[in-house]
């Protein structure tokens, strides 16, 4: 079980929940559980979600493990110059 | 339509080419003569990337017609080094990292050479105003100005 915080727009799509408890070991599992629970999130997941684990942003790595007591925050994938 | 036959001197070599009346010297250099060191950044004389010397006069080659090259002596970036020996300005540009992307570099080098030919010991302000016709978007000009001042110093034997 990990605690996951959502950015504003994602929280709105998750019925206003800013923090969720999810049973997930990896980023891939996290996305799967989120989509099951809140189908409205699929669109965001397809568009790309970055996962911040203790302040380090992971953009692409599904297999990344989610430590139990880590600070996990979901962000949109972003573009740079 | 028949072209205009032009005989000219480029980097010390006799060169002949045919061009259309409306073709610019820049187009002739790049597209007919394969001298792509001069760049087209704007085509309107506002960026200096196409700078060349015509009879020792600094110009934007985008604002000169190819036909006007007849009988002239043209110097481009390709003629700046002496064989494999770089001109001091070229060396200093590399040493000072006075270039990043490098697209403006040929124009800057030609303009800087002209500047130092007229003023061997310029102040920073003279360098800045002397090179104001050459745009650079990468460097903020800091390292370019330093490179030119350092090259001037070396060329004076100081």
């Amino acid at each position, binding site marked *: 079980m990990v605690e996951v915080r959502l950015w504003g727009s994602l929280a709105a799509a998750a019925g206003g929940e800013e923090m969720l408890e999810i049973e997930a070991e990896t980023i891939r599992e996290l996305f799967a559980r989120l989509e099951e629970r809140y189908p409205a999130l699929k669109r965001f997941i397809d568009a790309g979600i970055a996962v911040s684990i203790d302040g380090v942003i992971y953009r692409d790595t599904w297999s990344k493990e989610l430590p139990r007591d880590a600070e996990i925050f979901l962000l949109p994938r972003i573009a740079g110059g | 339509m028949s072209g205009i036959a032009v005989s000219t001197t480029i980097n010390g070599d006799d060169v002949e080419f045919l061009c259309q009346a409306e073709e610019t010297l820049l187009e002739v250099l790049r597209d007919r003569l394969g001298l792509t060191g001069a760049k087209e950044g704007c085509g309107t*004389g506002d960026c200096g990337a196409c700078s060349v010397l015509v009879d020792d*006069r600094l110009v934007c080659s*985008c*604002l000169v*017609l190819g036909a006007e090259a007849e009988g002239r002596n043209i110097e481009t970036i390709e003629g700046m080094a002496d064989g494999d020996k770089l001109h001091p300005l070229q060396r200093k540009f590399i040493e000072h990292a006075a270039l990043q992307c490098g697209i403006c570099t040929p124009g800057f080098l030609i*303009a800087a050479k002209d500047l130092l030919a007229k003023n061997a010991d310029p102040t920073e302000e003279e360098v800045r*105003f*002397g090179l*104001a*016709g050459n745009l650079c978007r990468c460097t903020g000009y800091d390292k370019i100005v330093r490179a030119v001042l350092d090259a001037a110093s070396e060329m004076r034997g100081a």
Partner: protein
Amino acid sequence: MEYVLPASLNDAIGLLAGAKGNAFVLAGGSDLLVRMKGDFIEPDLIVDIKGIGELAQIVQTADGFTVGSAVPCAVMGENTALRKAWPGVVEAANLIGSKQVQGRCTIAGNLCNASPAADSVPALVAAGARAVIAGPSGKRTIAVEDVPTGPGKTSLAKGEIVEAIVLDKRPSNSGDAYLRFIPRTEMDIAVVSAGVNLTLGADGAVASARVALGAVAATVLLVSEAADAIVGTRLDDTAMEKLAQACSAAASPIDDKRGTVHFRKKVAGVLATRAARIAYERAGGK
């Protein structure tokens, strides 16, 4: 399109007079080639006047200077006598474009391009310069301010060429100056500009003056009220205020991408006073 490099002025006039379609004079080309590149014009004939020997010279005579219409502005800047006699005119000519453009552009071209923002024109107007115009029916000499008639328009008839710009010999204790406002330090077109030319009397006060403004109307303005404001004065604060007011009042600019009406009117006055001070100092005023 045809490109011709005539060897004589008469040949050039003949080519232009006889041209079918759009014919243009090529001196420095720094406006002409930009307009071609932008597809604003499609010339059928270009007459390059740089092959005409007499147009490529600056001649100093007993009466002053004759600047040939094919003389690049950079060459004007290299002429010590001209620079000494007409520092404001030469400064103005040397503000057009970059060093690269300086090597090509000419004051005659700047005049005939007929932009209200042309840098050299206010200085030439203030200087009382004249244009020698050669055409199929002979030569005529007119005040430079009578050449442009509106943005992009001149009083030149078909086949006519500006042969030279004539600047008079300076009376002693005279000075001129030109200032323009640009947002950057180089490479811009004047948002507003001012040329001032004055001569001091034996008493050290301004005996005569001409004040011209650029980029504040369809053509460069010669503002007699502005000159009146400083004649008879030593540029005291009241005179300068009057000069500024006269310039601001005379200006009838437009709002455009380079500046606003309000800005141009205000800064016209500011620049005129600053230019007047420089001219005054150059004339030996204290």
